[in-house]
């Protein structure tokens, strides 16, 4: 039954243990760090991005090769996204947005390969990434603008008597950003992978349980799974894009706090 369990694909297991911090020295105490299947795919994701970008641009050709053109288009795509959302001043965060976009995009695409682990299907990963963005916005916002950063919560042009209502709403919406940012990515990837697994698992169970009739009945869920696979590729790409665009927009708040 484990083969059709839709949750099994999210299980993290240790490939080898690294070290334990704290605890009393006996097994099971302290915080143990390990190299897990999740870590393996993080390494693979980063290695894929770095190897592709560095190899494809190693020629530095004036007339680009196909691979170099792909790298250049990726660069221009993210650069355009940052520039249009956060302006030229936002280009100092271009490497951050580029890293976020490529990391999430490649991790999502790896997740579409059967038997591969999806790094972004774990809330702690997406939450850590969104907290990175959130803290960058807060720290950079205060360093660059000082107390004026708080103007973000007091929209200009709003009459004074509405401010007691508007300001708490702004504060809550600001504080909910890392949650919405992380849960959006996590939820989309998790739900997509569960749905895929449920449909394909349904086909497997039908064939196993009903024999010849099952083969007939399995066609419908298999067709559904094929359609969903295409959809999941789209979702994986769109969620990476959404994460990067929202990051650019949040960074814009840090650079230009007044609305």
């Amino acid at each position, binding site marked *: 039954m484990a083969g059709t369990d839709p949750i099994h694909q999210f299980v993290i297991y240790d490939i080898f243990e690294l070290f334990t911090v704290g605890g009393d020295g006996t097994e099971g105490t302290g915080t143990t760090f390990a190299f897990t299947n999740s870590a393996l795919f993080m390494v693979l994701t*980063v290695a894929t991005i770095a190897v592709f970008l560095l190899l494809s641009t190693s020629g530095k050709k004036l007339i680009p090769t196909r691979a170099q053109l792909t790298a250049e288009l990726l660069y221009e795509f993210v650069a355009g996204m940052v520039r249009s959302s956060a302006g030229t001043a936002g280009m100092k965060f271009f490497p951050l947005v580029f890293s976020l976009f490529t990391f999430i995009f490649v991790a999502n695409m790896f997740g579409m390969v059967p038997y591969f682990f999806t790094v972004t299907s774990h809330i702690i990963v997406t939450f850590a990434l969104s907290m990175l963005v959130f803290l960058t916005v807060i720290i950079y916002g205060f360093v660059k603008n000082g107390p004026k950063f708080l103007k973000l919560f007091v929209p200009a042009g709003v009459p004074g008597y509405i401010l007691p209502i508007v300001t708490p709403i702004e504060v809550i919406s600001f504080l909910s950003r890392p949650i919405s940012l992380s849960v959006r990515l996590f939820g989309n990837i998790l739900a997509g992978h569960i749905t895929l697994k449920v449909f394909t698992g349904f086909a497997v169970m039908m064939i196993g349980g009903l024999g010849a009739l099952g083969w007939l009945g399995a066609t419908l869920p298999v067709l559904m799974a094929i359609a969903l696979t295409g959809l999941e590729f789209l979702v994986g790409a769109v969620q990476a894009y959404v994460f990067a665009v929202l990051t650019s927009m949040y960074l814009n708040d840090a650079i230009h706090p007044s609305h």
Partner: protein
Amino acid sequence: MVTQAYAQEAELPADDHGTEAAGAADAMHVEEGVHADPTHDTHATTEAHGDAGHSDVFPPFDPATFPSQLLWLAITFGALYLLMSKLALPRIGGILENRKTLIDTDLAAADADRQKTDAAIAAYEKALAEAKANAQGIANKNREAIQADIAAKRSAAEADLSAKVSAAEARIAQTKAEALTHVDEIAAETAQAVVSQLVGDVAPDSVRAAVAKVKG
């Protein structure tokens, strides 16, 4: 699948309780929670369940996996950020910048060349117009000179001719007058001869007088 999970929960009530309490908290709580139950040790249990394809908590919410994930996310994403910001992005940016500069300089050079061509064409046209005007002037001057020359030569020839004509006319008149003076002589001789034939000799002077009388 469901029955199996339930069976597991029934088997391991303490473990389930421990992780449930830890669901919203951090990894330390799990370990404390499980530590209270002497028959289990967290990592062993979690791993065992993980390998079996079942965890007693939903895997994305299993805090026991958080430290490793965070550690490796920090390592890998940090490495990615460094690689991108120090190596890959400056290189791609350099390629794009280089290409843009090259295109701009090429365009500027092409524009300068075009302006040079325009200037050359203008200079050529000016020189051509000047040469044309020059040629026109020379032609006019030559024509005028030739015409003057022709006119002078013609008038000289005409003067020469008219002089010759008048000289000839004078000669003709002289010859005529001379001839006319001979007429009297001839007439007198003829008359003398005629008269001498008819009447004998006669004095030439009287003949001449008679002829002059007749003529007169």
